[in-house]
């Protein structure tokens, strides 16, 4: 069977190709996947997970992570900050049939025309040793007494003046880390969007599961939040109008100085008249079917 039996142009990408690209991006642009306080610039070995990078990143002295502000110690009259890190250590995709990674029992077997996502993330937070706390306590107590009677909101005192005080950040000796694995099952579907007459290609979430997070209510709460972030925050932004998928060849040629008296476009092969699914998620690939349309 030919690739183009049911269309004019066929394109496909295999899950292994995408996963290799993701690995290259993670190793060449680690700052997109790792976030930590400036302290770790000198001590990257203290991060939760060792960051695997391409040799050229080290040669170019590119940052291994994006530098973020310390997490404040709430309520402290002295501005105190704690070192932390957030690392996305693995990201993979699996097109039906599922064979790149095993889905947790809660999600079952990957259904037809579905794709699965796997992500592993680690969060680490510094925990000050008791001797640091003892060392700090006299200064904190003195400041607490000095600030008595000033206006406060809850447990946090707002800093006075325009300039935010630099927090005191103690050097980290060892982060407390935990890692979680997130699995999601998704599919593509065509549909309308209120206010737009054309069809849109949307990404829909079928299920999501966090593994190794407890207790159960905490897992449920975090899962629910991540679902909302995906369904209401990220996935709607990924919707693509069919108009954006139509490649206007006439216009492209006109820009190259070649004028054509006909309108030539590349358009997605219609579903289900042309093909049963477009894009199709099958045979470990994402497949797209395209037709050449010529209008005089």
């Amino acid at each position, binding site marked *: 069977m*030919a*690739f*183009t039996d049911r*269309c*004019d*142009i*066929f*394109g*496909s*990408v*295999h899950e*292994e*190709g995408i996963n*290799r*690209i993701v690995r*290259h*991006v993670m190793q*060449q*642009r680690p*700052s997109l996947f790792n976030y930590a306080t400036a302290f770790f610039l000198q001590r990257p070995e203290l991060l939760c997970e060792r960051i695997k990078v391409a040799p*050229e*990143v080290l040669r*170019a002295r*590119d*940052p291994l992570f994006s530098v973020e502000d310390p997490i404040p110690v709430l309520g402290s009259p002295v501005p105190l900050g704690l070192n932390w890190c957030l690392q996305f250590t693995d990201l993979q995709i699996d097109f039906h049939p599922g064979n790149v990674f095993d889905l947790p029992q809660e999600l079952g077997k990957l259904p037809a025309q579905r794709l699965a996502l796997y992500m592993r993330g680690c969060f680490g937070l510094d925990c000050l040793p008791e001797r640091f706390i003892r060392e700090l306590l006299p200064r904190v107590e003195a400041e607490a007494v000095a600030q008595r009677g000033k206006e406060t909101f809850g447990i946090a005192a707002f800093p006075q003046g325009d300039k935010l005080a630099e927090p005191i950040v103690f050097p980290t000796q060892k982060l407390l880390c935990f890692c979680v694995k997130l699995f999601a099952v998704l599919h593509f579907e065509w549909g309308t969007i209120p206010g737009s007459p054309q069809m849109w290609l949307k990404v829909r979430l079928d299920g999501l599961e966090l593994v190794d997070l407890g207790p159960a209510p905490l897992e449920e709460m975090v899962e629910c939040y991540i679902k909302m972030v995906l369904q209401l925050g990220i996935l709607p932004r990924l919707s693509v109008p069919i108009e954006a998928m139509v490649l206007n060849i006439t216009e492209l040629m006109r820009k190259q100085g*070649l*004028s*054509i*008296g*006909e309108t*030539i476009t590349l358009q997605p092969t219609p579903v289900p008249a042309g093909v049963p699914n477009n894009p199709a998620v099958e*045979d*470990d*690939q994402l497949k797209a079917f395209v037709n*050449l349309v*010529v209008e005089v």
Partner: protein
Amino acid sequence: MAHFTLAVSERTFQRSFDLLKRNLTFAQADQTSFGIFVAGYDVRAHLEGGTIDLRADNTISVKELDIRWDRLRFMLGINIPEICVGGGCINMPWPIPDICLPRVCVFSGNPDVSISPDLAAFVAQEVSFTGSVVARYFDASLPVPSPDPCAPIRLEPLPSHNQWHIHIDPQTIDVDLFDFPDIAGNLIENALSNAIRAIIPGGFVRDIILAIIGGIADFIRFLLDIPDEIDEWLSDLFNVSFGLLDFIGTLILDFFSSCNPIYRIDDPFELLPARDGLIPVRIPLRDLSVRVNDVEMVAEVNIGG
């Protein structure tokens, strides 16, 4: 299974070929002088006929594509230096008026003598071509052969980094510089049509006769084209081209097939550009291949580990 696959159907090639024929015209005009000589051209051509076929032996065949000249006018002129006689006046004593001689100049035109024949009706070319699309890897670390046979005809300098090159690899090419069957057919058809139009101003009778003339002219074209058909068939069969001009054409295209790719892809391929002092993200491309069968052309590439 390849990581990335792109396939284009034969039907798409045929429709694109038809679109190209319908829309592609070539027009150019220029004039320049070399001392007393002036030379120029004014040409306009379009494509007609021909077929494109994807074949099971990994080749693409374009057959009998006609290059039709709408205008093929060449101009050659000579600018002879101007020569003038007369023009002076003889002063006469009063009251006799002065006598002035008339001034006569020759060769005051620009150019003075020129010929500009339009050969459009007498010239037609027909091109048949069989070739494959091949992907080759350019390894920048390897030394360039010495002497470098491509150096005189290389359109772009060799890259300083590794690249995948897509080449057209011609196997046979048949160019009829003067397509006599078409020329004869066109001349006969034009002459007879003009005669009929002069005799019968209009109406369905004239249209019928003109249609018959068109058929006769096509038959003449067909008869005269038989030797050429045989030549093309033999060329196809033995994978070589006959005729000195065809041989030269094949030689030239062979050179181009090795020296000038039609498309280049950097390896590694830049996925994300350098930004804010960060190095670009580059993806290694492996096993790029292009193959043709009788229904489609398929390009595949893998991502390196």
